[in-house]
């Protein structure tokens, strides 16, 4: 087990490293204009610009730059923003935005896990009856209707009926967070409900459930002791990944409610050619994604005894 963990960990680190390097190299292919603010571009003369670049080490051979970049990365120095929030440290920009996204992400994740899984269980218990169909209608609706349309509906109903504010504000975080959290959750509720139901129905149709009935177990015990636990195993692999992606913020929702989170930062930075911020964002997202998958694998290993013993560890 330890061997497998270490191996997966090394693989993950290597993956992050490759992504980071590729992003760095790609961004270095951009014209150097983008290292200046719009204002500087107009005001500074060519020589001054050249001097500034030289001083920043951007005229050095690419491998030297790469080496220096790794060094900074180890010290968690991601450079300074030149456009999005000119002059500010990228880490600083990201930390404050990350805090907002994370808080909302965590709450919505908790909400959707509880509601989604409960919904999946209820659907399974009422399979092919009214509640099951109702849940399916919800799942299809959420998946088929474009997110913006459902968000608009939530906005309309939320503001009209519940008199909730439509824009996020740091003065009234609690009340203004409700609608964004609802928006963040509707999709993942559908996701968890769908997969919980699917895996539970899968398990219910297996032979060992029949043997459990033959030995005189009640349906309730079978559900709790066999079906639920076994259905969670495949589900559990996705939880860390989606958790980390949720706390990474949602572009759409954060735009929609003007939330100063991580979501809009990357598109902002790309739109305005802010190389350091793009780089910082990509590193964070890649890192989150890969840690998520890694944790998912570890969870699987803890909960599924068949994986522990495969030694070479690549059966799934």
């Amino acid at each position, binding site marked *: 087990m330890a061997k497998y963990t270490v191996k997966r960990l090394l693989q993950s680190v290597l993956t992050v490293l490759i992504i980071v390097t590729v992003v760095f190299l790609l961004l270095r292919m951009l014209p150097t204009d983008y290292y200046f603010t719009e204002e500087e571009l107009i005001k500074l003369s060519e020589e001054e610009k050249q001097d500034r670049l030289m001083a920043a080490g951007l005229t050095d051979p690419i491998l030297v730059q790469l080496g220096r970049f790794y060094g900074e990365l180890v010290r968690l120095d991601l450079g300074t923003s030149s456009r999005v929030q000119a002059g500010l440290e990228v880490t600083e920009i990201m930390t404050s935005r990350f805090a907002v996204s994370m808080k909302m992400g965590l709450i919505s994740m908790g909400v959707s896990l509880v509601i989604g899984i409960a919904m999946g269980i209820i659907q399974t218990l009422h399979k092919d009856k009214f509640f099951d169909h109702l849940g399916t209608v919800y799942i299809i609706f959420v998946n088929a209707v474009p997110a913006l349309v459902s968000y608009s509906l939530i906005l309309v109903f939320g503001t009209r009926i519940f008199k909730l504010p439509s824009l996020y504000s740091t003065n009234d975080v609690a009340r203004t967070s409700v609608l964004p959290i609802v928006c963040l959750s509707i999709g993942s509720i559908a996701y968890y409900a769908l997969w919980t139901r699917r895996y539970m129905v899968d398990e219910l149709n*297996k*032979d*060992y459930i*029949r*043997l*459990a*009935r*033959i*030995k*005189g*177990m*009640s*349906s309730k*015990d079978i559900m709790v*002791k*066999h079906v639920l*636990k*076994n259905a969670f*195993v495949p589900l559990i692999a996705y939880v860390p990944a989606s958790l980390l992606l949720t706390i990474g913020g949602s572009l759409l929702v954060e735009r929609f409610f003007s939330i100063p989170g991580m979501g809009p930062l990357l598109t902002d930075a790309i739109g305005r050619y802010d190389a350091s911020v793009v780089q910082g964002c990509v590193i964070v997202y890649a890192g989150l994604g890969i840690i998520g998958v890694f944790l998912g694998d570890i969870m699987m290993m803890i*909960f*599924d*005894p*068949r994986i522990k*013993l495969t030694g070479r560890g690549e059966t799934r």
Partner: protein
Amino acid sequence: MDRELLLSAKDIEIEFTLRGKVLKAIRKCSLDVYEGETIAIVGESGSGKSVFTKSFLGMLDANGSITGGSITYGGVDISKYKTEKEWMGIRGRKISMVMQDPMTSLNPLKKIGKQIQESIEINQGIKGEEARKKAIEMMEMVGITDAERRANQYPHEFSGGMRQRVVIAIATACHPQILICDEPTTALDVTIQAQILELIRNLQKELNMTVIYITHDLGVVANVADRVAVMYAGQIVEYGTVEEIFYDAWHPYTWALLSSLPQLGVKGEELPTIEGTPPNLFNEVKGDAFAPRNKRALEIDFEKEPPLFEITESHKVKSWYLDPRAPKIEQPEIIQKLRRTK
């Protein structure tokens, strides 16, 4: 037969609803099960062997139900049981079952010992450490060596034969009176088959169980059974002691089954097969269900369902051949040959 009658199924009818259509899977089947005996039910796939015996446990699929007849067990008609609670009094502790495929019969994520323990905890009212000890005892009883250690392993660490032993341990953990073995050796290889049959036989003696085998392997039948019931198209067409079925069968379907036994084939000659297919049970079956496949069928076979004729007290056959008005029919050569080699 002076043994005690345990279970008596009378004129059982079972129907399944499939996409709005009704399938009559079992058409008036009767079977008496006596204490300590071994019954084998044989017949081809789809003849209703499994469905018939599953109804003793209330284990029919959700779209199936008993629509007629009665199953008397312990003085109660259990075919009228509706709730799970009623059935839980029967399942495991009175009647139990071993299924065909041991590879899928166990929960892959639960320790073997725990799965046996569960069965003991439900039915014997003991919990925890004590139940665990009993589970390990049970594992030893079904021939698993090093049971203490193996109880902590998961199903994927067991071979097919070993898993079937575990399944048998689970099914018999509460010493049921009747154990139904639904093709217990079909998924195993031949050397293991013999061991499993031996195990079931030993357990049967030790726990004083009645065993009902469901199989299409007549070799198994000859080896283990006291009595044989031959099923065709949802009916028991002939039943009798092993001797009566193997040496003095009278139903044309039993003849056909016996003739197609590879062990009885003559070298160089083609092995006889039963031509045609069983009737579609969505439709009403007219006359003798086997008549369309029977080359020597009588006219009446196509028109009227034959009653059960009694040859001896233990041997009954559902065929017009035994009617006194029927033309004289000889048993096919293979049956006569079998009798000569007796």
